[in-house]
């Protein structure tokens, strides 16, 4: 049955759901604004949303370079995470030996907080963008590996039995069955990875940098410029949301079957 057989019901549900979300968000902002104005909360403690917006507007000339820097670090870190994570997970799935060797190392690596590693990374490869990219990549690649290998292993037994019954090379089975099957898993891993890459980049900037939204937060909070600290945080949030939706969009393009209404179990 076509998934959009009842377009109006779906549309209405969509509007209703989002309307409630927007309404609640607007209420929260208004309460915040009113509380700050009526309660006369000092700006260095908690600036009202309107003050944050005007502070951002006032700083509009110097912001783009910082936004661009952080965006670049996140995207590069994310990409490296995927480029390293996917081949590694393939290795893990294909070779039990590799799995035995690589997995414990991964778990150890994952158990060390990246915040703790960040200073070392800076010592090793310097103060520049490269260190932030590396930290972002290190933070991002774990969910990629876990999800992609889980996806490749979740292929129904019968499908593998069927594929093998044609005496086709196992590389072909891998390429035609396992990898496409793991795509939705890869994408949900990438959604997490993108958020983590953002955290990694900001952590890197906190430890030492001269550009980026993390650097701005650090600088402005040391000068008690709280409105711009909040402004930078808001920009980080917007950046995070945009990047997340970028992955969602890619998911919708590359695995349309996964998006269509939670009926995964039925046809697998």
């Amino acid at each position, binding site marked *: 049955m*076509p998934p959009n057989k009842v377009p109006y019901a779906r549309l209405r549900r969509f509007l209703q759901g989002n309307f409630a979300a927007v309404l609640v968000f607007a209420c929260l902002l208004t309460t915040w604004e009113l509380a700050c104005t009526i309660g006369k909360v000092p700006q260095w403690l908690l600036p009202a949303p309107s003050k944050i917006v005007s502070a951002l507007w006032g700083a509009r000339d110097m912001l783009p370079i910082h936004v661009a820097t952080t965006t670049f670090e996140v995207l590069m870190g994310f990409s490296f995470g995927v480029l390293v994570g996917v081949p590694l997970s393939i290795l893990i799935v294909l070779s039990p030996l590799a799995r035995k060797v690589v997995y414990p190392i991964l778990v150890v690596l994952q158990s060390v907080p990246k915040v703790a590693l960040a200073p070392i990374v800076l010592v090793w490869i310097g103060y520049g963008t490269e260190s932030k990219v590396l930290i972002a990549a290190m933070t991002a690649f774990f969910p990629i590996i876990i999800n992609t290998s889980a996806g490749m292993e979740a292929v129904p037994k019968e499908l593998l039995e069927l594929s093998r019954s044609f005496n086709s090379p196992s590389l072909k089975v891998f390429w035609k069955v396992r990898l496409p099957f793991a795509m939705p898993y890869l994408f949900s891993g990438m959604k997490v990875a993108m958020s983590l890459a953002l955290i990694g980049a900001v952590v890197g900037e906190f430890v030492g940098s001269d550009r980026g939204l993390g650097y701005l937060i650090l600088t402005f909070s040391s000068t008690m410029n709280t409105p711009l600290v909040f402004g930078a945080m808001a920009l980080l949030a917007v950046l995070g949301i945009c990047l997340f939706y970028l992955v969602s969009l890619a998911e919708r393009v590359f695995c349309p079957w996964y998006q269509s209404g939670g009926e995964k179990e039925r*046809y697998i």
Partner: protein
Amino acid sequence: MNAIVEFRRLSMEYTTRSGRSVLALDDINADIGENEFVTILGPSGCGKSTLMKIVASVIKPSSGEVFFEGRPLTAPTARIGMVFQQPILMPWRNILENVLFPIEMMGKSTKAHEAEARDLLKLVGLAGFEKAMPYELSGGMQQRAAICRALIYDPKLLLMDEPFAALDAMTREELGIELLRIWSERKKTVMFVTHSIQEGILLADRVIVMTARPGRIATSIKIDLPRPRTMNMVSTHEYGRYAEEIRSLISGGAQIAAE
């Protein structure tokens, strides 16, 4: 009649995790004739699926032998087609691409087989759905496509392991009758596992009745109902006799196992 599959003293023993050994199949001896439609009927746990997996060369028997076309079965072969309980179509491929999947895996030209795939889809009533994605189809339609996928490489033997068990009763009856139509058009040997007595009788030339723990062949009953079969035959006297015989065999076996 020439036998296409021969089971000789076939046994299958499992060791469970707790270290207990379970005899799933015990001394199976049977012949499946060429172009014969055989249903394998029995309570759950009688080793029906194990038997199918052995024929598909997915697992190896503990002892005994299986001959396929006169030669011992050792490796999976494209002369055997498989249909499972779930359609397991690949959600990223459209219906036509799913049907052509075996051809692609065998390294043959999908172009050359496309017309055949379309014919098959027409045969099962899926004409016009070639470009549809699996998730746009109902469970019954997906299973039809899965049958096409098993037929596209023209296997001699079709293994069907409870292919309609996940479907609702009405779709199930409909597909059963349709399967018979397909079978009569493209002569094949079919081994069909089911735990529905009605399905077992209505489809089959012969019913092999199995008992559980250990899985043994209780008997093999030739079904002499005229073809083409219809659902109405359920109310005939002959059908009733077959059903009663099979039911008593299965429940009798269960009693022995309980003792």
